[in-house]
């Protein structure tokens, strides 16, 4: 049983089923970190095998092996910092690499090798420090034996063990250290003596990435490598009715046309030939049930469904129906949230080399363990014969936690935008009753949207019928906890459109709903949005800490330049607390975001520079969705295809982003995702301040 409460067998079962062509994903939502508090950290877990994580060469080169994938979130730096807190490094002799797939690299919370859920630092906070401490202990012991001085007189400093006038590089001591029995216990440096943790550190992968030397999945080349592109059904769940590959085969460089489970693959000498070959394919599709999907119609049916009883009860207390009748004021609101594509900059791709006794895979993946099983089954090899060379990920955002069993050498942007695995379309219907002082006393909240857990191998994570990825941010909301009468229900309609976690998962829609609703409630109560939230969050100090810091830094309540307006939001996700104040102007219907002030409480900020960068990134990701993001379908076909009609934010739209970190001695919590949920509501609330228009659908469009 892992700390997350998700048991390992769930994942193994998932892996086994993947060979049947199912898509696998992980869930790494709210972790009961609090349950660990008070327990001696890591006491229950044996010390890690330091050799799996650290190699010291005779020349003093120290190689740190990463159990988590670098996808922009900064693990190439953050995990090394954890280790370096205990083993003082000569940073000029440092190498970093992704781990191969092996049991040693299982995620400390989830039990499989994976990256996600904003848990990399949170989950590795002990393990990488322990590895550093074990190495330090052994190197010092080796030096003390070599020099015949007490270990207590030796210390590790910048790649060397030193004792009085003596010093020896880690490389000189490595062989002797490796021969010593491993310590069974190590003492980690207390926070008061940290010199690395909490000090901003520049990224260690910059030079490789600004010179084009960093290898992404798409950059793998070896002699004999072919490129395959798959023509997939333009309809979700559609099937090939008939195809003719003759014209494709005539394209120069095309080697083969083969039917595969997901469609028709065109195999060619290079990408361009595969692309031309695919365009020349003659395929007739049977659209199946997916042929009539219309997202406007879907929104209408979700709205109707929300009015029906029979949703799964995610949270209930008191008698909201009776309490609503006695409320002084009732606020009712409905919200529409679209499908969203992740659209990482690097289109999805995977490179495979199969020989008689080995299958090698090069890809940027968030799910190594889950990839290994199906690859073994497809190739008929044992799992340990499947090697995965994790490459840099050209963005993940959850999308690279969806391995399919297809052999896909490369995909185009259109494949990505059309390819599904979207953030699900959602509808929320909310009714809140306020007492005479404006405090909520009754709260009815119905969500309608697809579950990407139900009916998948990950169904085991659904507890008592409640899919946490659907209702998180509502059923566990701090606001709701203090409302004596409430009911949260979820309807999970089915659709052939595939859906998935998208940076911040359920919080990506619930954060918008809860925080724009809070503004409506404040307005109904005749109170300032900040003051109103303060009163609601009186028993939630970490929410309040972030809220007060952001409000103070943004100058909430002080006059702004003419035409500028503030909106704020605060939301907890991944055990972190983020507040944002957006400064917005509206000119002839166009929303312009000028500045976003963020405050985050993520517990101990291991690399404050990385935290700041992730918050900047989250603001852009959130704004892209708030201002532009929408995947729509008509007659079963996705209407967007590339970056011209699925628009991420561009440089000229970039606001000034300021990030402030709430000082904290708590254990580290999530950073990559928690900055996303408050963005859209902070902007929408500012738009209300500017125009009086309450926007309850995304992307934001003024009437």
């Amino acid at each position, binding site marked *: 049983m892992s700390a997350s409460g998700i048991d390992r067998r769930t994942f193994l079962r998932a892996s086994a089923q993947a060979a049947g062509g199912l898509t696998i994903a992980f869930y790494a939502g709210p972790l009961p970190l609090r349950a660990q508090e008070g327990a001696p950290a890591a006491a229950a877990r044996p010390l890690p095998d330091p050799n799996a994580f650290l190699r010291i060469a005779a020349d003093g080169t120290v190689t740190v092996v990463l159990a988590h994938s670098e996808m922009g979130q900064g693990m190439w730096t953050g995990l090394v910092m954890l280790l370096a807190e205990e083993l003082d490094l000569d940073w000029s002799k440092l190498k970093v690499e992704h781990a191969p797939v092996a049991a040693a690299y299982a995620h400390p919370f989830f039990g499989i090798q994976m990256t996600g859920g904003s848990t990399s630092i949170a989950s590795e906070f002990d393990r990488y420090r322990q590895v550093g401490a074990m190495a330090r202990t052994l190197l010092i012991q080796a030096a003390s034996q070599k020099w015949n001085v007490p270990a207590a007189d030796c210390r590790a400093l910048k790649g060397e063990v030193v004792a009085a006038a003596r010093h020896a590089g880690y490389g000189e001591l490595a062989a002797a250290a490796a021969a010593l029995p491993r310590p069974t216990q190590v003492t980690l440096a207390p926070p008061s003596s940290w010199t690395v943790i909490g000090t901003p550190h520049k990224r260690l992968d910059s030079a490789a990435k600004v010179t084009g030397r960093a290898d992404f999945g798409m950059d793998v080349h070896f002699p004999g490598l072919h490129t395959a592109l798959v023509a997939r059904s333009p309809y979700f769940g559609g099937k090939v009715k008939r195809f003719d590959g003759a014209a494709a085969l005539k394209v120069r460089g095309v080697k083969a046309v083969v039917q595969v489970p997901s469609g028709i693959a065109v195999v060619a000498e290079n990408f361009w030939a595969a692309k031309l070959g695919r365009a020349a394919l003659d395929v007739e599709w049977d659209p199946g049930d997916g042929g009539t999907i219309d997202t406007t119609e879907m929104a209408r049916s979700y709205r109707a469904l929300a009015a029906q009883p029979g949703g799964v009860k995610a949270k209930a207390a008191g008698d909201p129906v009776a309490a609503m009748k006695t409320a002084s004021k009732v606020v009712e609101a409905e919200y529409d949230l679209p499908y969203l594509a992740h659209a990482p900059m690097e289109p999805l791709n995977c490179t495979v080399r199969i020989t008689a006794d080995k299958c090698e895979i090069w890809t940027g993946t968030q799910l190594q363990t889950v990839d290994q099983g199906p690859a073994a089954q497809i190739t008929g090899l044992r799992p340990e014969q499947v090697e995965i060379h994790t490459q840099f990920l050209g*963005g993940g*955002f959850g999308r690279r936690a969806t391995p399919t069993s297809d052999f896909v050498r490369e995909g185009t942007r259109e494949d990505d935008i059309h390819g599904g695995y979207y953030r699900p379309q959602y509808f929320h219907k909310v009714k809140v009753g306020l007492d005479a002082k404006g405090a909520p006393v009754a709260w009815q909240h119905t969500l309608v949207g697809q579950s990407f857990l139900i009916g998948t191998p990950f169904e085991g994570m659904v507890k008592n019928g409640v899919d946490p990825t659907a209702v998180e941010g509502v059923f566990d909301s701090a606001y709701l906890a203090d409302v004596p009468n409430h009911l949260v229900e979820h309807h999970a309609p089915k659709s052939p459109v595939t859906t998935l976690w998208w940076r911040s998962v359920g919080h990506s829609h619930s954060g918008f709903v809860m925080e724009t609703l809070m503004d409506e409630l404040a307005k109904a109560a005749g109170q300032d949005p900040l003051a109103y939230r303060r009163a609601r969050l009186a028993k939630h100090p970490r929410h309040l800490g972030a809220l007060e810091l952001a409000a103070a830094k943004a100058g909430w309540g002080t006059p702004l330049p003419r035409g500028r307006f503030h909106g704020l939001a605060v939301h907890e996700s991944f055990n972190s607390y983020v507040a944002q104040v957006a400064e917005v102007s509206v000119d002839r219907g166009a929303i312009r975001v000028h500045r976003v002030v963020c405050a985050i409480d993520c517990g101990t900020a291991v690399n404050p520079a990385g935290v700041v*960068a992730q918050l900047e990134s989250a603001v852009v990701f959130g704004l892209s969705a708030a201002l532009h993001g929408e995947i729509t379908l008509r007659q079963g076909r996705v209407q967007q295809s590339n*970056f011209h009609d699925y628009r*991420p934010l561009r440089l000229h739209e970039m606001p000034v982003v300021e990030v402030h970190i709430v000082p904290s001695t708590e254990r580290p919590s999530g950073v990559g995702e928690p900055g996303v949920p408050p963005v859209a509501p902070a902007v929408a609330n500012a738009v209300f301040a500017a125009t009086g228009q309450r926007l309850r659908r995304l992307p934001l469009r003024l009437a």
Partner: protein
Amino acid sequence: MDVPEDMPLLWVLRDVLSLTGTKFGCGMAQCGACTVHIGDGPVRSCVLPVSAVGDRAVTTIEGLSAGAVHPVQQAWIDEDVVQCGYCQPGQVMAAAALLKAKAQPTDADIDAALSANLCRCGTYQRIRAAVHRAAGQTGGRS
């Protein structure tokens, strides 16, 4: 080189010459990941047929500097710009071209030159700062 005339320069670089520093992001001049220089000017190599290059000199990210020593690359490192990094060869090439054309760009110049280069990780604020730094401007905006 024996390649079809209509093959975009990007795929000649990546698949034929194994120069994979230049990236593929969209294939339709929408993202700038494939930016290279022809002469001193930035070009979207994903939409440029190789036959259109003629005998002009093409500079890719691999050819920008030996090591990360170009002022733009150094500024990118100093400002801690990169995240996933996939867009960054294109950003660096676009910024280097801008600075060749205009040594002291304003924010408006930077917006005009670099808004065609997408970064899904959202490193824009640092890109602006890094261009100013590479131009030797400390304060930045004008």
